[in-house]
């Protein structure tokens, strides 16, 4: 404790790091190389303007809708499917190869295909989120189930636990941390999916703001829109990570 106070707390370091980053951005933006790259101050002012005139909040309302729906679908069907794969040899046997390929493949390449099949509506955008988020959610749930300490399972059996008790009292609690981590990674993928979808499929929401402002050369506005989605995604993922550490501290995770 004493040692820590002498070197200043981590929060101070983090703030310093941000200050340095924004400072460099400011300098780089003022460098007369490209006027398409605005300095931090102008971008920030543009951000405030877009919040004030309501265009940014409105854009987020339409961007977050397919994201939330997509992640919700994944968290029910994806986790369910991953658990099924972990528990049943039969399900594992026919679906594991597919998911191993899906997890490694650049799923973003599927998005034009989705547009082709489902048009440019909400369905397509939800699907774009699902396609990117589902593999990691399914695989994490599956691995969580499969990695259960075999010694705990034998313990459960030797003390006369039924298969049902084995699943509910040992396997699922054991997998919970990995499943939650899968959701967090899935959400990160979902952010990528929704932005690509809005840039490629339908110019709506935040994707529309970016495209529109770039087409009329409002570069500070365009940058503000880009920065806002990056910050939102980063903050959300970070909050989930903290929640995860709180819910499943490493020492009680049991691996």
């Amino acid at each position, binding site marked *: 404790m004493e040692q820590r106070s002498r070197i200043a707390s981590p929060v101070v370091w983090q703030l310093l790091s941000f200050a340095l980053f924004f400072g460099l951005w400011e300098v780089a933006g003022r460098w007369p190389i490209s006027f398409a790259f605005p300095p931090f101050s102008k971008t920030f002012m543009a951000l405030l303007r877009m919040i004030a005139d309501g265009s940014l909040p409105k854009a987020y309302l339409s961007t977050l809708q397919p994201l939330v729906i997509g992640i919700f679908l994944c968290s029910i069907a994806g986790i369910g499917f991953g658990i099924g794969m972990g528990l049943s040899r039969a399900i594992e046997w026919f679906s594991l190869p597919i998911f191993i390929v899906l997890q490694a493949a650049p799923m973003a390449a599927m998005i034009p295909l989705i547009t082709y099949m489902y048009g440019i509506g909400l369905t397509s955008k939800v699907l774009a989120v699902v396609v990117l988020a589902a593999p990691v959610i399914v695989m994490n749930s599956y691995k969580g189930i499969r990695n259960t300490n075999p*010694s*705990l399972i*034998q*313990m459960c059996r030797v003390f*006369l636990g039924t298969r049902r008790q084995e699943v509910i009292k040992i396997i699922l609690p054991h997998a919970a941390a990995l499943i939650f981590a899968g959701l967090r990674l899935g959400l990160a993928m979902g952010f990528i999916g929704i932005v690509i979808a809005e840039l490629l499929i339908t110019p709506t929401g935040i994707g529309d703001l970016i495209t529109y402002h770039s087409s009329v050369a409002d570069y500070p506005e365009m940058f503000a829109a880009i920065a806002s989605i990056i910050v939102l995604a980063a903050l959300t993922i970070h909050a989930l990570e903290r929640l995860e550490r709180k819910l499943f501290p490493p020492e009680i995770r049991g691996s």
Partner: protein
Amino acid sequence: MSADAIVEVKEVGKTYDGGVEALTGVSLGLPRGRLSTLLGPSGCGKTTLLKIIAGLIPPSSGEVWVKGKKVDGPGPERAFVFQDFALLPWANVLRNVAFGLELRGTPKEQRFEVARKQIAEVGLSSFESSYPHQLSGGMRQRVGLARALAVDADIILMDEPFSSVDEQTRRKFQEELLELLRHKQKTVIFVTHSIEEAAYLSDQIVLLSPRPGTVSKIIHPNIDRGGRDPDEIRRDKNYLDVVDEIWQILKQYI
């Protein structure tokens, strides 16, 4: 085979899926209310034999009879103490000790009452609400032992329960285990690597040969333990003879 054997192992052999033959033609009887040790070189199939008796893995040949019934799975008269403790990391000591009863559907109040008593007996009363990661290896092993005692099985199977504790703790455990046996009339089957531990604790020592394990000798140490202090027992002529006898046999396997 002795008349009052509570566990009878008849011509048991085990070949694992990969083709490893771990045990072959093992026959022995384990007397009721006594402590028997399985001793032998590493990899000779001690854990395998213990798990077959527990009903956790089926033998490839032969059979095991417990209390006059053929074993085809785990049963309420057998409890197991695991070498790696096998405690639920997300549950506190109280729930871990009560877990066997929880699986049997014993109501909460009742099973916690039993668990508290067992926790007190292994000397962990002030740790009821601690989690396994907050305990030392020796304390975790006591939790494992308390869990096995809580289900009130007649037979307690222990796989190298003291292998991860230091020598002082180990000796203290051995005392406690002997004390426990004297009071509860449990039959204990105990796997160990330690010749001294086997000689000190056992009423019967089963020596296994290297893989595939067979019974190479059964020794019945006749050490008078009644009311004597541990150091005295360790200087006892019978005790020293047994240690030497085992050593002469195990020496050939190195």
